[in-house]
């Protein structure tokens, strides 16, 4: 909790000190404090290369896939109360039922085994950042939080609020809570990094601007989660406004004649 608070305070401080950028392209992420974000991103990337990636590699090689799945299931199950609370706050009755059923279906095994997915109840993470979006909040400027990674003002606020929704954060004394929270974040990070080990390395190796790539992926992924993976609203000429300007090439012939077509 303290780390989140420090991260967001720092980000907001930097935000206040920075001038706004010029025009924004369609679909571009609003990133007025890009230089500061890039700095934090570089720090996070160094931590990834030096600490997280080697740890995840060992974890992936040493721990059998079945056990890693148990870890993933358990971490997800621990977040159930937060998912349920946020589904309710979003007024999403179907999501509320979905997440409550998941919680109950996996409870007999303390969330270690994910039987719910087999019953057609897939994972459906909800957080307060998504709830704020459903309530109509704009994402605000893009932020890269130290150690926690890509975020924005809305989702950072959500991160803090989610801590208050988690019943496990009310158990034990403050010291124990702090240790538990850090442990959960660390295990979560290693588990995630191991699950997508090759994909993340590839993302890095094949990019020409890793920072910009992660920034747009974060925004798109968040938007998909906010919509609960349903397609964007119908009625728009094209769901992603960007594709309105798409001009198909008529393949080989186009090569020589394309300038005159402009």
């Amino acid at each position, binding site marked *: 909790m303290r780390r989140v608070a420090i991260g967001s305070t720092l980000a907001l401080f930097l935000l206040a000190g920075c001038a706004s950028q010029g025009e924004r392209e369609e679909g571009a992420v609003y990133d007025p404090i890009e230089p500061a974000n890039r700095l934090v991103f570089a720090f996070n990337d160094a931590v990834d290369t030096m600490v997280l990636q080697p740890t995840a590699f060992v974890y992936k090689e040493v721990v059998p896939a079945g056990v890693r799945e148990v870890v993933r299931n358990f971490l997800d199950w621990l977040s159930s109360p937060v998912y349920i609370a946020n589904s309710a706050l979003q007024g999403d009755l179907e999501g509320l039922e979905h997440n409550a059923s998941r919680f109950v279906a996996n409870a007999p095994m303390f969330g270690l085994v994910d039987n719910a997915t087999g019953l057609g109840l897939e994972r459906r993470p909800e957080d307060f950042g998504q709830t704020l979006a459903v309530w109509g909040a704009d994402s605000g400027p893009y932020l890269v939080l130290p150690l926690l990674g890509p975020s924005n003002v809305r989702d950072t606020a959500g991160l803090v609020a989610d801590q208050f929704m988690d019943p496990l954060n009310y158990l034990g004394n403050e010291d124990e809570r702090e240790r538990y929270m850090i442990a959960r974040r660390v295990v979560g990070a290693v588990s995630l990094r191991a699950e997508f080990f090759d994909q993340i390395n590839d993302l890095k190796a*094949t990019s020409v601007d890793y920072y910009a790539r992660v920034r747009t992926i974060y925004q798109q992924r968040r*938007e998909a989660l906010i919509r609960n993976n349903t397609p964007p609203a119908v009625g728009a000429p094209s769901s992603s406004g960007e594709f309105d300007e798409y*001009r198909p*090439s*008529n*393949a080989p012939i186009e090569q020589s004649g394309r300038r005159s077509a402009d």
Partner: protein
Amino acid sequence: MGSLFRAFVLIVLISVPLVPARSASDPGEFVSEFAEKAISLVSDKDLSTEERREQFADLVQTYFDMPGIGRFLLGRYWRTASDAEQDAYLKAFTENIVYTYARRFNEYDGQKLTIDGVREDGRFDIVSSRIVDPASPQEYRLDWRVIDEEGGFKVVDIVIEGVSMSVTQRQEYASVIQSNGGRVQALIDALNRQMSGIRASGG
């Protein structure tokens, strides 16, 4: 007249196998045709890495609107680029795409593509599908944005779990060009540098 007709039929028959993408009658079928070909290519253990990559490049050229995607990714910078820059960029970008995906081939482990349905989206058709892994309950949603061009369907974008490959690359390219004072050549250099890095690491 009769022999002229026969000659015409012959020409048509000869040219048809060269454009297999034009045979599919609906976008879902078209996407699943591509997936089948890609999977059989990846599963063919007799091919060398290089042969596989070359065949994959042909497959991509047939099923994807590469010049159109390339131009789309450059956005407003396309018009500011010179003819030579446009050509160099298209070449570098296509190579980049092929290498990016070819790198992932050794991860293939029996996954299948299931087509769920097709919906219209403006000028496009969106084919929704799922990657199903026989070894794991985890599935990934994959949407294909397909355009019906003169002469057949072409894929213009793939959306994985809500993340569009074209939009992602477009934003990334714009960022590179912007931080280099609007110079398209800077992007071409970056793409070529990155390609030589990937080649040096064994592709």
